[in-house]
């Protein structure tokens, strides 16, 4: 069995599983946030009316809650959702609730790794499509809707069809001017928006061995954009060190068997990658930066679970150091812990000296919620993960998806710019 099959087999209490088996798997961790949480509360209300008991959760210690989409509260409705969420966690005894304005908080997927909320080998589900991110720690990490999350909260298990696994063998270390974001955009461009539909996308090879844990998180985050059920990387010493630094102990490093089966194998020469972007209006609409259309950009957005981890901010700071932005530039660290490190290590000063605005952790404009949404005809270069019509604001706004290096270089010139071409 491969790693995903092994984790699901354990969760289902079976000695083995194969692709297409339908199993009910026990869940080790479940997450919801200020959008899916109130959605789950609504499901609970419906269940109560149907006479189904929602008096207690299966295990409140396995549940954690983030506040990220509409925080700090954008207006009255989102403020009320935060109050609702707080009442819910208090009522059901959920202690791990990361509240904005009270120490560590941030985008749910960022909290999942910054706070070591998920361990290698876990079956982890979250009420958000980019839950796939956390597969980079060697967990089965999968996004679900409100009804399914409500089901998990009450029953501790959920159904899965065991996916087939596409194995992506990445050869060689990424060049200095190239980031994981460039590579995953390239992959999505090749296989398409539904190229990984219902499947596992597993990454391996020397390209992954050389990559930091944060870069692997970027890879797994964007498997959602190819329709994958989960993205995953087999855990190694880097993962152990990363989680140990964040207080984790007793890790169970599940890896695939030597004779593990993969339904397809793709090979990419990661050492030969070029800076790559996705043009409007789809993550699969990719091209290398040097062949990008010559458009006048209005905004640069460096944020989200995909593109505002510490490593992403560090990359942007390398570009911004000693330079000025030519377009509106917003930088939103993805969690308070990252914000703090960026402050301690002088990154915030570099950003402010360059003329950029630094905002609080939030999903913000990535999902068109608030904090810098786009107007009609505005064109943005963004380190986020989606650029569907209207994703970041007006239906006739445009978003180019890019790595933090490309986004920062473009902010400096006002045009889509390969970091190698920056003077």
């Amino acid at each position, binding site marked *: 069995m491969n790693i995903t099959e092994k984790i699901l087999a354990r969760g289902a209490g079976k000695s083995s599983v194969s692709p297409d088996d*339908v199993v009910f798997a026990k869940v080790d961790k479940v997450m919801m946030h200020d*959008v899916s949480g109130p959605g789950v509360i609504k499901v609970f209300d419906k269940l109560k009316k149907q006479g189904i008991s929602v008096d207690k959760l299966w295990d409140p210690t396995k549940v954690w809650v983030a506040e990220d989409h509409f925080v700090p509260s954008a207006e009255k409705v989102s403020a009320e959702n935060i109050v609702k969420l707080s009442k819910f966690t208090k009522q059901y005894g959920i202690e791990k609730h990361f509240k904005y304005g009270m120490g560590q908080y941030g985008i749910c997927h960022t909290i999942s790794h910054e706070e070591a909320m998920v361990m290698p080998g876990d079956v982890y589900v979250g009420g958000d499509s980019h839950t796939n991110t956390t597969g980079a720690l060697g967990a089965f990490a999968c996004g679900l*809707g409100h009804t399914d999350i409500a089901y998990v909260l009450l029953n501790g298990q959920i159904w899965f069809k065991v996916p087939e696994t596409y194995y992506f063998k990445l050869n060689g270390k990424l060049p200095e001017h190239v980031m994981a974001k460039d590579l995953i955009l390239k992959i999505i461009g090749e296989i398409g928006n539904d190229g990984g539909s219902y499947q596992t996308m597993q990454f391996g090879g020397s390209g992954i061995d050389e990559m930091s844990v944060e870069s692997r998180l970027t890879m797994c985050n964007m498997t959602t954009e190819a329709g994958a059920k989960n993205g995953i990387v087999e855990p190694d010493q880097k993962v152990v060190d990363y989680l140990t630094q964040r207080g984790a102990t007793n890790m169970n490093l599940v890896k695939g068997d030597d004779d593990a089966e993969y339904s397809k194998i793709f090979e990419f020469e990661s050492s030969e990658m070029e800076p790559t972007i996705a043009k409007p209006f789809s993550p699969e609409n990719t091209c290398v930066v040097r062949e990008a259309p010559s458009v006048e950009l209005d905004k640069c957005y460096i944020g989200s679970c995909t593109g505002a981890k510490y490593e992403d901010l560090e990359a942007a700071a390398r570009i911004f150091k000693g330079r000025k932005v030519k377009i509106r530039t917003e930088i939103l660290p993805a969690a308070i812990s990252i914000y703090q490190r960026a402050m301690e290590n002088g990154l915030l000063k570099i950003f402010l000296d360059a003329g950029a605005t630094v905002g609080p952790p939030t999903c913000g404009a990535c999902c068109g919620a608030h904090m810098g949404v786009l107007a009609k005809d505005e064109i943005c270069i963004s380190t986020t993960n989606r650029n569907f019509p209207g*994703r970041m604001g007006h239906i006739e706004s445009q978003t180019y998806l890019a790595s933090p290096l490309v986004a920062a270089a473009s902010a400096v010139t006002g045009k889509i710019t390969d970091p190698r071409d920056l003077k």
Partner: protein
Amino acid sequence: MKGNIIKYARDNIDTDVIIPGTYLKIHDYAELATHAMEGLDPDFHSKVKEGDFILSGKNFGCGSSREHAPIALSHSGIKAVLALSFARIFYRNSVDGAFLLPIEIGQDAYDGISEGDEISIDVSTNEIKNITKNQTYKMKPFSELIGKIIAAGGLFKYKPDQD
């Protein structure tokens, strides 16, 4: 099940256009319905009728996991979406929450059915009849579990232990 078709002849209709991100804070189902498809078809709310079906191409419902998407369509009156393929979270949200039926169709149905056609769907025979054009197509049968969850009326009414 009988209804009229609203056709979007394109692939990759994502949940950001089915219900734009700014409405994610809303959890009132009737209010969500007033914004359904707003990112693609601002006239949707005024033209949709109770019992209508949507017909579309590949990878319907891709992107965000927001359950708001099947909720907004279902509370607009949509009883089924017919598509060449579905993104996984939209599919399971539709079934587990018992909001609407996600019907996988073949190229013949996609090409043969036009905007406004009246069709009937019979999930017991996996047949789709185009009443307007007097044609018949096959739908892809539901998998065993999906069929059982639909028959039960959603995931919470399905009892896995009784299988």
